[in-house]
């Protein structure tokens, strides 16, 4: 795994906190331990891939509440729940609420580590996607109003002629605008531009 990957451990029980931290260190991960969720909130998450191992008393409610407050604080991070009281329904609700994994104490090393690696991978993809989205957005925001209109119609599948007719422009002018859009958005092909447009719609709509 990458060296800058951070694994956060939140557990109010010293035994468990020490043990999990120790185990993660032993496999060359960089754990950071907190005794409470409040402490974690003060530090926040880094921009490098990271995940969170959280000990919960009742995964159903506390876990969900915690995730919501993370969302509100803009601290979205993959969570691995560990608990001493678990049953299938609570595990299911935790997974549905977006948990990477739900582990019963005492858990096996492989289960914890595979969950951690999965969490870090998820986070890496998230971060990448977010980075991509923001690049595309910054390119998109450099388009002029006219270029914006042309891009929307092009990605909707209209031909140059149809666009020109709809916008009251000559086909040649449309061609020039379209060339500029491709250039500014750094799109290699029309399908590439369509993909970017989809992403933008998701990013702006979300």
């Amino acid at each position: 795994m990458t060296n800058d990957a951070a694994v956060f451990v939140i557990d109010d029980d010293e035994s468990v906190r020490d043990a999990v931290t120790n185990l993660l260190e032993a496999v060359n991960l960089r754990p950071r331990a907190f005794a409470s969720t409040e402490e974690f909130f003060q530090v926040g998450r880094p921009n490098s891939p990271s995940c969170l191992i959280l000990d919960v008393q009742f995964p159903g409610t506390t876990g969900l509440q915690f995730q919501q407050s993370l969302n509100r604080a803009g601290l979205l991070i993959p969570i691995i729940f560990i608990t001493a009281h678990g049953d299938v329904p609570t595990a299911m609700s935790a997974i549905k609420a977006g948990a990477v994994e739900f582990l019963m104490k005492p858990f096996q090393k492989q289960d914890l580590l595979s969950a951690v690696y999965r969490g870090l991978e998820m986070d890496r993809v998230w971060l990448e996607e977010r980075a991509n989205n923001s690049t595309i957005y910054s390119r998109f925001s450099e388009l002029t109003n006219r270029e914006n209109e042309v891009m929307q119609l092009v990605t909707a599948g209209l031909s140059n002629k149809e666009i020109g007719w709809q916008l009251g422009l000559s086909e040649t002018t449309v061609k020039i605008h379209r060339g500029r859009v491709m250039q500014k958005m750094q799109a290699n092909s029309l399908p590439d531009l369509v993909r970017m447009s989809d992403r933008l719609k998701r990013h702006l709509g979300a």
Partner: protein
Amino acid sequence: MRSCRVGWLRGAEFETLHRVGEMGESLSVSVAVAEPGEINTAALTSGGRLRSSSGRLNSRTKADLRLGRAFTYYAIAIFFVITSFALTFALQHFFPYPFLFFFFGAVVASAWFGGSKPGLFSVILSTLVIDYFFVPPYRSFSISSTAEAYFAAFVACALIASWVSSSKRKAEEELKEARDELEHRVSDRTAALMKTQGELAHLSRMMSMAELTASIVHEIGQPLTGIVSNGQACLEWLSADPLNAEKARRSADHVVRDGTRAGAVLDRIRALFKKGPPAKEWVNINELMEELVTLLRDEARRRQIRIQTYLSHDLPKVKVDRVQIQQVILNLILNAMDAMSEPAPTESKVFLISQQNPQQEIVIRVEDCGVGLNPDISEKIFDPFFTTKEHGIGIGLSISRSIVESHNGRIRAFPRALGGTVFEFTIPVSAGEL
């Protein structure tokens, strides 16, 4: 193996519940031994069988014994009559008429000790002796006409005295027998009740245990997680290249630390739920309370309740049954937590207080911030089988009361000034010396 154990436990529980039913009947009529034929415990029936078989075996010896005893009674009658004759004979010169009251004494005494037949025998004997020696003409069994009425009056009075004396004696003996029988039944019944109560107390502990299962699982699960993870980390450090001995050693240290912690949890649970004869030992009540709080920590967190302790730290040790007293405190804390389940109070706290009062008693108080006691039922809450809970069977507080009283303490409940209820019990500091 596991299913077999469960079967055993169910059996024991069933038996106990069965006894609970029995005890319900007997408690409502205080000690119900006054009703004949109501005793049905195993101990008593086996005792009864023993007695009847011994009777059959010794029937010959018994007949011999009866004959010997009858002979003794008649001998006693003869002895009393001879004694009264001697006394009357010695005294007859001091009285103008035959002094016969000694013979009444002989008749009454013979009837008292020997019953109606020796009594009658002594009447006949006395009559003969009086007729021969003291009724004119003397030294003959004939009676002069002047002495007839006097003699007849004596015989009549003697007969009545004999009858009264023997029947009085008989009644007294029957009474004594009935009392002995009653005493026997009471002691048998008391033993059965004590046994039932011990089983009830254990059942109540088992029920508390069921309530605490999740908490116990958590208390053991935490150090176990530590052990497994530290152990695996230790292996990783050992197989790292180069080997990290320092980290491996620290991991092993933590394994030991967590293992010790798990052991301590098991000790606490065993101390709380063990089944055995009551045994008193010198105990620091505060330690007892702190152990319970540790065990209940997770349960309290689950119910989002804070347990706050205010323990007076200069309490003397007291000689009590650790398991029983812990059971009382546990009952009270669980009750306090139940009292705050709904409607949700403004403040979810249980206060656990220990102190010493001027009467040389240790006072243990459990306060909750719940809805409080309804005054109509506050008198009944310590009664057996009284409950306000849907899932309770109403033995917790009655068991608690009998435990506290067996330690010469008192238990009571009263409203808390700031809302909620206070349960308080006392243990005399001198309890151990009693």
